């Protein structure tokens, strides 16, 4: 009885917080709109104008731009994660490989990665390929460091326990090392996601025909404030949806971490 009442009270609490958050956001938009109309909106634009532009865009090719950016993000994420995780697992378990290769990777990471964008455009062209490589490279480093640290942090006692039961090396990987690394891999993906989005849009800012970054570049060069705000708003929504998506996946795969009292 009291447990249910407690649950309801907690739900009400969350609902109240949400209501306040919506109220806060709505009043901020209202203030923006009113202040803009009174003081002029050359540099700040108005929510109503931004909304109008979004509607116009959606009737044009907003969908295509979003798809291009998302494609670059996901393919780059997949390739970079695969490489980073494999490298992390390999170097994490084999000391000699780690001693030789890890310092090299650390040195390469010192290059601010988004400044590689012009180089990649020269190599791979202005279209999606160069952006995918940029995303892939950024994600590779993040996933590698996360996976490496994760593999090293696994309690060797767990591996020994299974070894004593008669597990082969392969079974040790399957039953201990891989599942134990999942937590770190997910944390790596959570961290990588915003960087992946940033890398994709930055690449697009520098050149290309389609993608959210190209919309921003076009608006910027035309001093189109409304366009800039609209583009940023779309990226904001994409970013939120991506993070929430990862969080949902994590809650499913890492159930065992979240069930503690």
């Amino acid at each position, binding site marked *: 009885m009291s447990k249910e009442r407690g649950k309801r009270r907690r739900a009400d609490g969350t609902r109240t917080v949400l209501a306040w958050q919506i109220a806060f956001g709505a009043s901020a938009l209202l203030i923006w709109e009113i202040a803009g109309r009174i003081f002029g909106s050359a540099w700040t634009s108005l929510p109503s104008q931004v909304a109008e532009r979004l509607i116009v865009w959606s009737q044009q090719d907003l969908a295509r731009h979003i798809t291009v950016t998302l494609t670059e993000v996901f393919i780059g994420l997949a390739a970079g994660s695969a490489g980073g995780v494999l490298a992390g697992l390999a170097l994490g378990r084999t000391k000699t490989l780690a001693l030789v290769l890890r310092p090299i990777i650390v040195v390469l990471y010192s290059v601010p990665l988004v400044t590689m964008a012009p180089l990649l455009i020269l190599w791979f062209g202005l279209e999606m390929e160069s952006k995918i490589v940029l995303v892939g490279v950024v994600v590779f480093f993040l996933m590698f460091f996360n996976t490496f640290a994760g593999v090293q942090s696994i309690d060797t006692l767990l591996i*020994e*326990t*299974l070894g*004593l039961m008669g597990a082969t090396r392969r079974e040790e990987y399957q*039953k201990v090392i891989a599942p134990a690394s999942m937590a770190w891999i997910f944390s790596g993906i959570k961290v990588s996601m915003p960087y992946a989005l940033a890398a994709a849009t930055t690449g697009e800012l520098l050149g290309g025909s389609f993608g959210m970054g190209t919309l921003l570049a076009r608006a910027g060069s035309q001093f189109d404030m409304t366009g800039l705000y609209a583009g940023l708003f779309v990226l904001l929504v994409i970013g939120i949806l991506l993070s929430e998506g990862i969080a949902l996946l994590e809650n499913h795969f890492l159930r065992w*971490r979240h069930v503690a009292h």
Partner: protein
Amino acid sequence: MWRTENRDIERPQVMTAMEMGTSSAASKIDFAGVSKTFFARGNELQALQPVDLKVRKEEFVALVGPSGCGKSTLLNLVAGLIEPTTGTVTYDGEPVAALNFRVGYMTQKDTLLPWRTVNDNIGVSLELKCRSTSRAEAKERIAEMVDLVGLRGFEGHYPTELSGGMRKRVALARTLIYRPETLLMDEPFGALDAQLKLIMQDQLQKITQHQKMTVLFVTHDLSEAIAVADRVVVFSSRPGRIRAIRDVPLERPRDVFRVRFADSFSRLHEDLWNELKDEVIKGTDV
């Protein structure tokens, strides 16, 4: 004849071959002049002075002594997790060279896999290739073990949701389920309340007698040691050496609930306590 056949059916494939060669007179485990010194950060720490001990097949030996006297080190040596500094540890006549998977080891720290439920943790040994158990049989045996340790209703829980005592019980079930021929137990029942302790002691000795397991059982609790074991070995404080060995004159099968009221129990308890108390005091002086 019947006994040997029964044993072959119950043992996993890994072990059957070894069973053929052993005679009942030979020791299962033999510690000959075994000592262990650990080197850490430039310092030497002698955990164990040279120890000689022979454990017979199917014998239940309890190791008792103050903290830090090397009891766990002995178990780690039999399991093949560490090597002796001097002497040899022999298992079934062969020196222990690598990980010894004919033993089931229940460590002091419970090493449950945090991402698996109680059921999956218990059943993990049955998933291994060296055992190849069918899923139906595995399910049955897991259920059997769950009942044995009294965790019905918690099959789908994760380790973080369980109390320390419950996690220990899962670890016990996980070790017993694949019926290893030798059991190494490091203070398995320390975290349990008094009633549960007795129940678990009762279950343990029933199983080990039925499965004809050889057992090395480390405990702080002298009463527990006498109640379950065939022989009790008392260790001195660090660096550990064997101070006394006594046979337990109580008959089997034993009623662990009542056995402590027998005269022979109290006499042995007093005898062993006299040996033990000096070492405990010595240990606490440091």
